[in-house]
């Protein structure tokens, strides 16, 4: 495990921070850099990375938190599925406390008697189905491209095993679509966004999809992208890359995470995904609204494993709590501390919005690691 120390090494961090100051501090411009992924947001707060940056570099938190972007209506669907007779809903722990409509949550449904089990992987859910042949096991699948291949493989495994009591409630969404939505979609513009000068792309997503999908943004919108790992040194190095590109007027996709990311990604994982999934015409995101072709659904040949079709469960859109600023936060337009519920009515113990629940949510990161930055109230 030596590598962990290596990438957290304080000296390297200070060297990178000095280089960033050198390049950025006197350039007379601002750098608004969006870290797309909630994992990056957490790393930035957990390691106190902002303390090492000059004041003209602003990190804007993006929508890359699968729990956060799931609209309330989809969560309501999961709750309704879980309450059906004979159903076991298998879910990641993060989802259980997300508030749904009318004060509902999976946690409350569970207390009311719904059989909801926490699992760590899709394959755990397949095992659950094998162990409970009399029950319908539904896996509540969420996530960006990192979690999609395991779900695809689990569905193929279930098909191979001839399991007839396993299905997936699919909420897999796509990173490039979300970035495009932030950059261009008129609907999102109307909702209000911020100008963003460059993007920090999540390395684990690019391990699967490669760096190639970002080339379009870089070219079309003249926004530099740095694909970044999750250790503090990775993030500082990527910020330096973006600052240099902006100073030199370049807009390219640069790969900081050469230790695992290639231009084309993981071909076998991508093949597994395209065997099982196809693009959805439309998917609603919390904060970003309806984005065409921004999510996946199961192909017709796997319809038997698609919980939405199997149980004929309709999507009923629903608004979350009015005062909750999650939607604006997910667009990068507001910060958690702009929400008047932050740290008062809304804390990790009593979350009112998804951004406070998820271990990748911006509100949770601010509260857990950064609330001392707030002037005392």
């Amino acid at each position, binding site marked *: *495990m030596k590598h962990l*120390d290596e990438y957290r090494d304080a000296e390297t961090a200070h060297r990178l921070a000095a280089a960033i100051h050198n390049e950025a501090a006197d350039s007379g411009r601002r750098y608004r850099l969006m870290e797309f992924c909630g994992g990056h947001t957490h790393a930035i707060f957990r390691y*106190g*990375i902002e*303390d090492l940056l000059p004041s003209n570099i602003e990190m804007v938190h993006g929508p890359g938190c699968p729990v956060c972007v799931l609209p309330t209506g989809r969560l309501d669907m999961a709750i309704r599925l879980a309450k059906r007779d004979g159903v076991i809903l298998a879910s990641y722990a993060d989802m*259980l406390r997300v508030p749904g409509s009318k004060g509902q949550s999976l946690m409350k449904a569970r207390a009311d008697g719904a059989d909801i089990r926490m699992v760590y992987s899709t394959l755990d859910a397949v095992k659950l189905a094998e162990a409970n042949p009399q029950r319908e096991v539904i896996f509540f699948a969420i996530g960006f491209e990192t979690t999609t291949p395991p779900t695809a493989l689990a569905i193929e495994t279930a098909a191979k095993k001839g399991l007839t009591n396993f299905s997936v409630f699919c909420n897999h969404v796509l990173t490039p679509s979300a970035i495009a939505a932030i950059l261009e979609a008129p609907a999102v513009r109307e909702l209000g966004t911020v100008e963003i000068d460059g993007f920090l792309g999540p390395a684990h997503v690019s391990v699967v999809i490669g760096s190639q999908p970002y080339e379009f943004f870089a070219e079309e919108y003249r926004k530099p992208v740095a694909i970044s790992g999750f250790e503090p040194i990775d993030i*500082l190095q990527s910020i330096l890359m973006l600052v240099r590109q902006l100073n030199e007027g370049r807009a390219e996709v640069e790969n900081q995470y050469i230790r695992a990311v290639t231009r084309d990604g993981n071909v076998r994982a991508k093949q597994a995904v395209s065997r099982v999934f196809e693009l959805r015409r439309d998917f609603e995101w919390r904060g970003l609204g309806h984005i065409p072709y921004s999510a996946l659904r199961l192909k017709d040949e796997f319809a038997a494993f698609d919980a939405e079709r199997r149980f004929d469960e309709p999507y009923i859109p629903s608004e979350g709590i009015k005062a909750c600023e999650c939607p604006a936060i997910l667009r990068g337009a507001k910060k958690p501390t702009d929400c008047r519920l932050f740290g008062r009515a809304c804390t990790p113990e009593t979350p009112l919005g998804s951004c406070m629940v998820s271990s990748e949510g911006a509100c*949770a990161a601010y509260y*857990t690691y*950064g609330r001392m930055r707030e002037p005392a109230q």
Partner: protein
Amino acid sequence: MNIAPRTSRLSTRRLDLVAGRVDLTHGAGGRAMQQLIEEIFRPAFDNPILARGNDQAAFDVAAGRMVMSTDCFVVSPLFFPGGDIGSLAVHGTVNDVAMSGARPLYLSAGFVIEEGFPLADLQRIAISMGEAARAAGVAVVTGDTKVVERGKADRLFVNTAGIGVVPTGVEISGDRARPGDAILISGTMGDHGVAIMAHRAGLEFETTIVSDSASLNGLVADMVAAVPTIRVLRDPTRGGLAATLNEICHQSGVGMRLDEAAIPIKPEVLGACELLGLDALNVANEGKLIAVVPAAEAARLLTVMRAHPLGRDATMIGDIIADPSRFVRMATRIGGERIVDWLAGEQLPRIC
């Protein structure tokens, strides 16, 4: 209900300690229960107070302040690298008593056993408890056993309670931390929780991490003898270092400033936490302590701690500051700052 036999010979056929299982008669208060006690618990805990066979333990107490504590143990798995539910139940309560600066004297032990539990495992756990108690210099002097139907408990739950005496002049309490005091810890963080999680079904990965489960009363005795002005002692169990430091801040109405680079964490533990998405500072310990002490005494206390086998890696990790918000702040390894918070939401269940 006592766990010592009232009569000497109750059954001619001894318990099958190889393949036998606990059944409902073992908790029914009859002969089968007496046999369980006589053949498993009494030899394991063997001591003169228990041997008198009363429903309660009677003993003389020294003059002065006594402390009492109790804890339930539901850890799963029952046997884990570095210990088992029996040794853990002794260490946990001995440590809770010792964190007042007290010398722990006596323990009670209660067992809730699920029907069908292997007698061999029960014996192994009882022996482990007895050994842990002897090693800590305490005696299990009274106890109770209940058997519940299959499915009404998960194999075995243990409760222990303990009492001890506080040496005169020692006044240790979570509300006594003052700005300027130093914060010391006795060793590496996160070992117990990670050892347990590594052995959990579904979370299995290769690791050499063993639980740090141990009785800390020996270390505490040395510390208190050398530096009686210690203000706070706490063992960072559930919720880890982060939760315990936050508790102290709230009790004392102060803040803390820590140095991340000073907090010792084994590389294996750090790696496992990375895989599991955990922060080692939130992970439980069962053989470590935190001490808050006036700064002037910190160096001397550290020397005393390091001289004890359970304090070899003792180190100073930060100091107490005045802070109405009662934040635990930490300078990160790379030179930033963050809060060290209680862990919200689902902690990994049943680690102790």
